[in-house]
């Protein structure tokens, strides 16, 4: 931004920017390469256009439309503007008719101009071109930077040209810009502004959460999606009649219904939307081009029972009240509400109804207006243009980072259907969200899964499989194997024995065997005997085994003698040694498809196990789908490693047998041992196996997994994270398939291929399998459109018969299908959403549905943000409520093995900033817990209940040991209000425990009380753990407050990067830079930097200041070189610190060292002060207020030394809490430094100074501007941020400054 400033002609009036312009100015300054500030229209013309007349009209219009000729520069009090005739956008004529495709050529030319970011300091802001496309074809292109015009002004520009072209003399010329500037100034200086500010602050405190329709952070992209359709006449007429009936205007009605649509689509009970406010009515700007438009936040809340007419009326009144304060800028409101710099936004979608829009009427020709750009789009803008009766276009502009083109099209189709449905609705909840087309699609089209499957039984399929090749190997286990012929014999023999015991259709046989050949023989035999098997896991607690046996009442158990004691004594048993080896040849029963095949018990939410009964028909569908869909062949080898009590085992057992494959049975404990598994996979030449994602993650982390080649890996049982898919493909070679299904529906009901080329995030659970349907329904059982979260239901042939012996539960969960008469559906209790391609995304359990502050949170989105850091291998995020009512998001992370050299504390800090840059702030976990191993259940799933409470960070490291550590741990606990009895461990981090800078001061005071010494804030920031701080307290040298040491480390970053040295302002203390330091040490992208603070040596008693600034600078340079002996030396100083930074840069150069970045935060050379009257001691003292973060102008009552010190003592600033001697030191430094500054003569520095100006300040001192440094620097790089001088090191200012520094470091 090193500009050669343009200058206004001597007599031209020079204006400050209006408030509306200022907001855009700063936004563009922060994103100088973003071209979306360009607003433009294209008017496509067909007919006999009189080009000369058109040119005259176009040129006359831009003569009148003064804002289009604006020039800007950095002025004394901030950016300034004037009218520059040289920039008037006279009509350019471009003949493209000779081009092959003139239309396309014109489009490309316009596109190119639109995509070129303007530099408002250098470039003309507006441009207009008439492209000739052919004999009777033209397109007129008008473009203006948003600083020069808004949407209303663009329409004025177009209309005025049409008026003049038609020869109209009855219309007045456009208005002058002076009036707009005057009106802005009058408002800024009037009382109304303060009243408006109070209204908004009150209305938005506390600030409601803003729920958006699309996940992600809303930051304006460089382009936007833009689509429009016309609403049909019938809908228009009915909407107008509806408005009439309600006694509302139709724009208010449309706004209300669209707001409701946004609220429903966001799945929230409340949100805030933005309503553009033109600000032209009753204003001199009514006929002036300019940027005047404002955006008013509109809070919207409704429950399903809210009466629709009531909702519309209330929103209309809210809008009326909002308009009364409509001139108060939303940028200012953001500042008032503290929404700057952070993640939180003021509003989500914009709703813009423009009832005065008329089609463009250009005399004698056909003209069609196309809007090319209206300015930056953060989220989505839903607009309606037209008069309602003749025309009403729905127009959507959306940020492509948040919305796909398809989702924009879907909104464009869905919203009119929503409006249509609203006409018939009584309550807010009556309106279905899906359009009729979407309802059809998401109920039926995506579920068109009919596929012929033989009406047979699992038994019959297995028998056919056994008969295929009797000599082929059916089973392998450790060193033994069974051929299909042997398997046939053994199972037939046992089946006969079971028949003899009375086993038949729908009788249960418990199978309580470890993985072995006997296990498979038992299962197949039970099926061949016509019974259903009930798997029991002998590792389960005896109470559970007793309970399950008591509920299921199996006829007998197949169990080893050693294990029989684990089962109830009343249950008859048949030991493997007693199984007959040879069949007697008795006829086995014919099993029917509706007979039970197996019963698997799952844990109910109440803790009472529920037995799911699956019939043959259901599991046949599942197995036949899998066999055919994935093309399994008889020569394949499939690993069986899932416990029989987990239904995944069902396909592992039987898919090989129905296909004729070899089933390789893993040794009983192998499924939990990654290295063992890897050797089995390799040595046994396994082609297909299953992993629960938790186990897969552990498996891939084992070096033995590298390079394994397999045909297929199936995952189910848990969410499959996208990062795990990517790790798999980077580690080994195999297809990867993600399956989903509850036990209640024959293993799996949906599938997704997560292959090498799959980049879906999150990974969907996919599409329904054969003869199966998936529904995502709202609470009224209506289908939901893609992207909206609802309850997941399943239907089809694979559904279980129900819960064994629990007809009540069965009736509750297996309900009549409202959309397919005569069918049943199962309510999974999971929440999910459709993707536009018809795949389902699983979002978790509805009973664990995560809502914080009323907003639904997608944990997967947070997990994706965490694992996007290369430092993380795996992450799980959940909500914990370790203390009643205290819900917290906790992220569990497993660091990547190669690591980034982070220690635990650095990793947490890194992740916090990393995640905060990717998700809204309410989704940033409160705690990050590092894990090396993941607790898993017997089935290999992540055992969420076994994850440690984040208190782990409290007792981080060993317990406190020394007296000092123990006492300090107690002080941490007291200051932070840790739960009773909890003592932080030696490595617990004060800030991670929830400490903020306020608590830090409290902590230091208590340390002072206890030990009569104070390690200082500096030490606390650098080493915030109990251990390190205790060491500092114990260290002999800590006599005086080392927080006041001449050099303190404010934040620790990457030691390989040159640190930044920040130089104290007037008070001599550098702690104020702590916010900036933390941001630089933990930036989202890029390398982190250590930050050191230079503090005045005169803070210590009896240590006078050197005799000059140059001497002081040389002393500082010595200190800096001790830390960083070689350049580049990066320097930054605020206020007086800036003067010192420049002097240090000069001194460094003189000594042959290289200064790097030299940044001055709102600092001005000594010359500026020299001519001013010498400040009195009390004036100097008042400067301390600024150092402490107060605006001195806000406290005129503090006129004595005692008053200033007393005020500081009462306040919460760190300065006010300093020990007495230290505050004395500060006071002394303020006065002495001031004297030195006045005597200082700057030397020129042969490098670049970066100057960051506090643009909201200096109204009374216009001489304070960056250019004052020009005599003392070879080059000047300038930046302005919307802050007061006193706030230049505040968190908000730091958030703006840090990114600018990072790109320059």
């Amino acid at each position, binding site marked *: 931004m090193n500009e050669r400033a343009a200058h206004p002609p001597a007599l031209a009036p020079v204006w400050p920017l209006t408030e509306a312009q200022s907001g855009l100015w700063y936004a563009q300054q922060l994103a100088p390469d973003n071209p979306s500030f360009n607003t433009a229209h294209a008017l496509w013309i067909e007919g006999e256009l009189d080009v000369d007349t058109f040119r005259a009209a176009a040129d006359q219009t831009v003569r009148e439309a003064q804002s289009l000729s604006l020039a800007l520069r950095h002025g004394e009090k901030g950016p300034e503007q004037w009218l520059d005739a040289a920039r008037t956008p006279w009509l350019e004529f471009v003949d493209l008719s000779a081009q092959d495709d003139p239309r396309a050529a014109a489009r490309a030319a316009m596109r190119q101009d639109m995509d070129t970011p303007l530099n408002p300091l250098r470039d003309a802001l507006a441009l207009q071109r008439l492209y000739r496309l052919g004999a009777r074809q033209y397109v007129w292109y008008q473009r203006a930077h948003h600083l020069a015009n808004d949407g209303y002004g663009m329409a004025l520009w177009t209309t005025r040209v049409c008026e003049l072209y038609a020869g109209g003399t009855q219309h007045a010329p456009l208005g002058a810009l002076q009036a707009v500037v005057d009106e802005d100034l009058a408002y800024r200086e009037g009382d109304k502004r303060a009243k408006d500010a109070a209204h908004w602050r009150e209305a938005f405190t506390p600030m409601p959460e803003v729920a958006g329709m699309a996940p992600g952070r809303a930051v304006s992209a460089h382009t936007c999606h833009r689509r429009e359709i016309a609403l049909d006449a019938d809908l228009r007429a009915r909407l107008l009649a509806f408005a009439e009936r309600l006694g509302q205007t139709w724009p208010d009605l449309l706004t209300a219904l669209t707001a409701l649509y946004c609220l429903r689509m966001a799945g929230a009970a409340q949100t805030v939307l933005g309503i553009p406010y033109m600000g032209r*009515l009753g204003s001199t700007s*009514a006929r002036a081009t300019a940027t005047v438009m404002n955006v008013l936040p509109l809070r919207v809340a409704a429950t399903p029972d809210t009466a629709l007419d009531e909702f519309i009326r209330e929103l209309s*009144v809210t809008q009326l009240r909002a308009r009364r304060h*409509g001139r108060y800028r939303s940028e200012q409101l953001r500042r008032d509400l503290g929404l700057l710099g952070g993640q939180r936004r003021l509003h989500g979608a914009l709703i813009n109804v423009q*009832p005065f829009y008329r089609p463009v009427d250009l005399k004698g020709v056909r003209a069609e207006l196309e809007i090319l750009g209206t300015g930056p789009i953060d989220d989505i803008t839903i607009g309606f243009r037209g008069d309602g009766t003749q025309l009403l276009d729905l127009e959507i502009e959306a940020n492509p980072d948040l919305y796909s083109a398809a989702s924009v099209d879907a909104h464009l189709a869905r919203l009119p259907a929503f409006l249509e449905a609203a006409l018939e609705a009584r309550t807010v909840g009556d309106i279905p969200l899906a359009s009729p087309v979407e309802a059809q699609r998401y109920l039926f089209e995506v579920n068109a899964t009919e596929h012929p499957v033989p009406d047979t039984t699992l038994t019959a399929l297995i028998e056919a499989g056994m008969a295929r090749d009797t000599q082929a190997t059916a089973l392998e286990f450790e060193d033994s194997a069974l051929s299909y012929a042997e398997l046939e014999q053994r199972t037939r023999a046992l089946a006969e024995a079971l028949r003899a015991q009375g086993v038949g259709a729908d009788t249960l046989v418990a199978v309580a065997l470890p993985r072995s050949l006997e296990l498979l023989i038992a299962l197949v035999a039970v099926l061949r005997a016509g019974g259903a098997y009930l798997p029991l896991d002998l590792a389960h607690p005896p109470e559970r085994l007793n309970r399950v046996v008591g509920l299921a009442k199996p006829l007998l158990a197949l169990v080893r003698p050693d294990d029989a004691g684990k089962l109830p004594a009343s249950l008859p048993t048949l030991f493997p040694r007693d199984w007959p080896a040879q069949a007697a040849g008795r006829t086995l029963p014919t099993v029917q498809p509706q007979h039970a095949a197996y019963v698997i018990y799952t844990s109910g939410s109440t803790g009472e196990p529920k037995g799911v009964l699956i019939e043959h028909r259901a599991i046949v569908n599942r197995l036949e789908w899998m066999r055919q869909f994935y093309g399994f062949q008889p020569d394949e080898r499939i690993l069986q490693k899932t416990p029989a009590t987990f239904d995944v085992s069902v396909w592992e057992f039987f898919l090989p047998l129905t296909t004729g494959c070899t089933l390789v049975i893993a040794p009983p404990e192998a499924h939990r041992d990654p290295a063992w598994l890897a050797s089995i996979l390799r040595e046994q030449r396994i082609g297909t196996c299953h992993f629960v994602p938790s186990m897969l993650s552990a498996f891939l982390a084992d070096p033995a997994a590298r390079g394994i080649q397999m045909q297929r890996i199936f995952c189910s049982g848990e969410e499959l994270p996208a990062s795990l898919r990517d790790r798999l493909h980077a580690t080994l070679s195999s297809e990867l398939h993600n399956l989903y299904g509850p036990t209640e529906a024959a293993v799996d009901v949906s599938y997704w291929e997560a292959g090498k080329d799959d980049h879906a995030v999150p990974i969907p659970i996919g599409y329904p399998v054969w003869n199966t349907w998936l529904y995502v329904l709202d609470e009224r059982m209506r289908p939901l459109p893609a992207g909206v979260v609802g309850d997941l239901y399943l239907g089809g042939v694979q559904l279980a018969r129900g819960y064994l012996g629990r007809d009540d539960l069965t009736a509750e969960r297996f309900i009549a299908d409202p959309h397919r008469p005569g069918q049943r559906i199962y309510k999974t209790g999971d929440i999910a959403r459709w993707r536009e391609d018809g795949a389902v995304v699983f979002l978790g359990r509805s009973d664990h549905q995560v809502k914080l502050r009323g907003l639904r949170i997608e944990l997967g989105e947070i997990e994706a943000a965490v694992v996007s850091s290369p430092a993380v291998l795996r992450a799980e995020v959940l909500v914990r409520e370790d203390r009643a009512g205290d819900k917290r998001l906790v992220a569990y992370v497993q660091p990547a093995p190669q690591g980034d050299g982070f220690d635990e504390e650095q990793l947490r800090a890194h992740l916090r900033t990393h995640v905060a840059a990717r998700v809204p702030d309410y989704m940033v976990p409160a705690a990050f817990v590092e894990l090396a191993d993941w607790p898993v259940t017997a089935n290999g799933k992540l055992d969420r209940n076994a994850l440690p409470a984040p208190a782990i960070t409290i007792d981080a490291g060993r317990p406190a040991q020394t007296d000092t550590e123990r006492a300090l741990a107690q002080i941490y606990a007291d200051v932070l209000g840790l739960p009773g009895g909890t003592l932080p461990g030696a490595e617990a981090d004060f800030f991670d425990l929830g400490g903020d800078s306020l608590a830090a001061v409290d902590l230091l005071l208590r340390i002072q009380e206890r030990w009569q010494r104070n390690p200082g804030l500096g030490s606390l920031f650098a080493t915030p753990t109990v251990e390190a701080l205790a060491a500092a307290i114990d260290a002999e040298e800590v006599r005086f407050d080392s927080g006041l040491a001449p050099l303190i480390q404010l934040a620790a970053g990457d030691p390989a990067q040159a640190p930044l040295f920040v130089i104290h302002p007037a008070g001599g203390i550098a702690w104020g830079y702590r916010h900036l330091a933390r941001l630089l040490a933990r930036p989202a992208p890029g390398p982190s930097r250590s930050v050191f603070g230079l503090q005045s040596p005169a803070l210590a008693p009896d240590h006078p200041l050197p005799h000059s600034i140059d001497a002081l600078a040389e002393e500082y340079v010595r200190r800096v070189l001790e830390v960083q002996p070689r350049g580049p030396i990066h320097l930054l100083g605020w206020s007086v610190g800036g003067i010192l930074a420049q002097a240090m840069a000069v001194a460094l150069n003189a000594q042959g060292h290289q200064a790097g970045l030299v940044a001055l935060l709102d600092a001005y050379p000594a010359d500026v002060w020299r001519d001013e009257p010498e400040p009195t001691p009390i004036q100097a003292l008042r400067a301390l207020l600024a150092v402490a973060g107060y605006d001195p102008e806000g406290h005129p009552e503090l006129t004595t030394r005692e008053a200033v010190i007393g005020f500081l003592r009462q306040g919460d600033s760190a300065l006010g809490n300093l020990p007495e001697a230290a505050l004395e030191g500060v006071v002394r430094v303020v006065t002495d430094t001031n004297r030195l500054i006045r005597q200082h003569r700057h030397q020129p520095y042969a490098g670049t100074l970066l100057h960051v100006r506090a643009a909201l300040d200096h109204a009374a001192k216009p001489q304070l501007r960056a250019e004052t440094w020009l005599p003392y620097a070879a080059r000047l790089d300038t930046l302005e941020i919307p802050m007061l001088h006193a706030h230049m090191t505040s968190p908000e200012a730091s958030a703006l400054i840090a990114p600018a520094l990072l790109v320059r470091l």
Partner: protein
Amino acid sequence: MSTPSATSAPLTLDRIRSEIAGIIHESPEDIGLDDSLVDWGLDSLRLLNLITAWNQTGLQLDMSELAGQLTLNAIWKVIRQRQAGA
């Protein structure tokens, strides 16, 4: 919306005051003659609807004549001039 009663009786200051008050949900006496009606939340479409109703008394008011300065006094002044001229 609450359309002002269409009547062809000549407009009075009281009538325009009460109709404007109705539209912004306020009592007529609360609206000062020189108050900015924009600051009371009046919007263009509601103003247009009022003008349309007032024009049924035989006036030919145009939105642009009233939109520049929006106070009761300013509106009344334009209407009175028009009534006198008609």
